[in-house]
């Protein structure tokens, strides 16, 4: 489903050449929950950006859902990203002057759905993260945890195959981090493949597979038994 072979990514300036990924190879199967760990500067975020087609790579082959990404133009990559991939960021990346409804609406607009379909999806997604009562609120009126749940709703509304999370709990306190993690696990249980970059070893342990990156290469795979709080409610309220 996601297959990277010998991916190489080099950042060049006039003075320095930085090898962010070196012969990076990885396969992620449908429905997996993969945690990516590694020290700062090891290439975790570069890997995630290449996976999400936000960065290009210098060499190697990357197939996403059977498509050779390197052969796609910007429009095709954007369409594939819009339809198959959802992002969750450490700093939430909500658009500050759009209310929750309009924030969740952003990827759906580029998808070309009708107004009716968009409304249905937005309401369902916000309902699912427990924020349907706050549709007209601005992000600044929410707590960090709530903002991250809006970001998750924005992803859920598009029903992606992949969810790429970059330190999704990095800006949250432990209680909120736990709630967000539970939500991600629930999403994964419903079939969405999740790749999560994290520094938090405890969170990484909750994934099915742990990949450790050092100096732009996979240094270690660990197949883990998932640690899930199955008793948690499916909808989290604010």
């Amino acid at each position, binding site marked *: 489903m996601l297959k990277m072979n010998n991916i190489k990514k080099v950042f060049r300036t006039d003075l320095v050449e930085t090898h962010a990924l070196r012969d990076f190879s990885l396969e992620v199967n449908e429905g997996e929950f993969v945690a990516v760990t590694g020290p700062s500067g090891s290439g975790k*975020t570069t890997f995630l*950006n290449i996976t*999400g087609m*936000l*960065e290009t790579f210098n060499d190697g082959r990357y197939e996403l859902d059977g498509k050779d990404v390197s052969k796609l133009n*910007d*429009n095709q990559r*954007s*369409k594939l*990203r*819009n*339809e198959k991939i959802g*992002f969750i*960021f*450490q*700093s939430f*990346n*909500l*658009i500050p*002057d*759009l209310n929750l409804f309009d924030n969740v609406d*952003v*990827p759906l*607009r*580029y*998808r070309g759905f009708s107004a009716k379909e968009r409304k249905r999806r937005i309401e369902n997604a916000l309902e699912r993260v427990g924020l349907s009562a706050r549709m007209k609120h601005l992000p600044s009126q929410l707590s960090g945890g709530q903002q991250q749940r809006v970001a998750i709703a*924005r992803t859920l509304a*598009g029903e992606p195959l992949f969810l790429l999370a*970059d330190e999704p709990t990095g800006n949250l306190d432990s209680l909120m981090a736990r709630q967000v993690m539970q939500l991600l696990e629930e999403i994964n249980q419903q079939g969405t493949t999740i790749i999560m970059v994290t520094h938090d070893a405890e969170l990484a342990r909750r994934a099915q597979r742990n990949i450790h990156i050092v100096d732009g290469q996979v240094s270690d795979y660990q197949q883990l038994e998932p640690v899930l709080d199955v008793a948690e409610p499916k909808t989290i309220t604010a």
Partner: protein
Amino acid sequence: MFSYYLKLSWLSIKRTPMLTALMIVAIGLGIGVSMTVLTVNYMMDKDPIPSKSHQLFHVQLYTYGEGHRNNRMEDEFPYQLTYQDAMNIHRSEVPLRKTRSLSTGFSVIPEAADMPPFLKSARAIDHEFFSMFKVPFLFGGTWDAEVDQSPREVVIISKELNDQLFKGEDSVGRSINLATIEYTIVGVIDSWQPAPKFYDLNNGSFNDAESIFVPFSLLPIHEIPSWGNNNGWRSEKINTYQDKLASETMWNQYWVELPNEETKANYQQWLEGYIDEQQKIGRFQNKKAAASLKNVVQWMKVNQVVPSDNSILVWLSFMFLAVCMINTIGLLLAKFLKRAPEVGVRRALGASRSEIFIQHLVDVSLIGLLGGLVGLLLGQLGLMGVKHLYSSYSQLVHMDLTLILIAIGITLGSSVLAGLYPAWLICRTNPSVYLKIQ
């Protein structure tokens, strides 16, 4: 998506009100200045009678003696005709319509005792003047054709004079005292201010149309004076009005309506025959003696109705607009780059470069449109200033629908042009750079 882009643009304007206001003012100033200059230039150069401008011809005869010429005209022809030539060529039956013309004026002596006499500009013409130049009538009409041969004291007055003397009532049949002579009113023309005043360009191209029109045939009877230019080229003793009528002084104008090329060629031939005839009796001895027919557009061009300085002013005003737009580019760059993190998010959520590019062009167009509205208002202020400074331009200083559409077109065109680089730059930025730091 367009309405979505518009909504985003409006939000963007609300998010950066000062920066947006600066851009609107910059665009508004550029558009205001260029539209003020362009309006004056456009209205000056506008065909004042488009349906007939290529059928109406001003007649010129090269009547100068050897060594004389009109230096102000490229072909050196005199602007006007002598009275005797105006009378002679009026015999031709070739033109569809024809009129002699003289700029004159009268002291108007009102009936009402409490209203003092006043001076009004007038024009002595033939009855076909009104149909040739499409002059609209409010009451009555022109005098009978026979008046052009057998003069009678009849007059046509303007709506403005009719309002002044008769409070706007139908005054046809009533009389008016012009320089102590009673004239019977046969018609009142409706508002009519051709700009430029193409039928008499050498007595003020942008002067107001006359208030009084009398038969040209009355000239020798009442010795109607010329209020326009009198161009003499040789020493002549002119002691009486009769001397002037018989002189080589050029003070009359002549217009003909020639509906097609064939009629024009026939009339040209007729005029050349007239010159031959005159040469036999000792006139037109210059080897350059010839006749010239210039239609309205040509007549405006040779008279330089639009001074060449105006073109330079138009260019300068557009240079100013360019400077304003260059400033706008700088402000747009600041505005767009401030928004780069949001663009990064949109790219991550599936927006393509082209969608980001279009969104920003819509953004620029909306700002441009608002700037254009400010520019139109400033343009109106500029035109009011021109009107205040140059009263003779009062007919010119208004924007018609064409000019408003041109202003909107220039605004949108220049704004989109100014926005191309910032929009291109922002859609090329790497989204991943901003996603981590937002």
